[in-house]
């Protein structure tokens, strides 16, 4: 079985970190606010469960 691993080594080499993760999330929300396009946050689906 082939296993594609994106774990430790990949994370160390990745330009992504806690700060860039948060910036990406804040920009997604900001873009939604500025454009008026709803953001899929998963909360709507959860509220119907």
């Amino acid at each position: 079985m082939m296993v594609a691993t994106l774990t430790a080594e990949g994370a160390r080499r990745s330009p992504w970190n806690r700060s860039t993760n948060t910036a990406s999330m804040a920009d997604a929300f900001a873009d939604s606010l500025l454009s008026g396009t709803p953001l899929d946050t998963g909360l709507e689906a959860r509220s119907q469960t």
Partner: protein
Amino acid sequence: MTRKIRWGVLGCAGIAAKAVIPAIQSSRLGRVTAIASRDPGKATDMAARFGIASAYGSYEALLADPDVDAIYNLLPNHLHVPLTVMAFEHGKPVLCEKPISLDAAQAMEFSAAQKAAGLPVCEAFMVRHHPQWKKARALVAEGRLGEVRTIQTIFSYYLDDPANVRNQAGIGGGGMLDVGCYAVSTARYLFGAEPLRAIVLMERADLRHGPPDEWTAGISRGKAAHFYLFHAACAHAEGDRAWNRWAPGNPDPLQPAGRQTDVACAL
């Protein structure tokens, strides 16, 4: 020139200086323009450090600021719903730290307030907005792993400071609420489906000095025979160091298992 969102940050916890404020200041579409803490000195210090225009000694004052477009609720878990609802009352959309609510009753209160206000809200699970996880979700959706039936997650850390908010039962600490929610949320995201039922084992700490759960392990069953298996630990006792196999510097894995192949991603 692209208009930027003017963020008001509620709270001056360590994560504010370490991650959230630098992240927003470096983001493409936003800037932090106001910050609030119950301790005015903390807010003033943080504002000076990061070039934030306004510092408030009360959350209500920040929420009333007409020059704030959106709120980042960084407060401890038990204040997520009350202050998010208060932000709605001031007409502000909210990006709220995870988990939004502590229990089902709070979730219902939050949901009703959000629907009444009609304002956007986002729970701070970065997974949904991160290219790695978008790719992982696409791999699952495209059938590249075969039929995915099980997602297994381990997310743990060692923390023995009883004063840390993550170790305080009364304000929403513990392994399940602090990191277990990542396992559940990410599995829901990858499957694109909601769980139908869950069976959970939880080991409770000394509630006078520890978190409500030192570790939690669960199996959640969703539609189409999806299973989420998760283990979350906010280890407190010395003997629990063994739970902390991956951190620090060696991220905890989440592993969607398909009939043809698996993919393991760092959380």
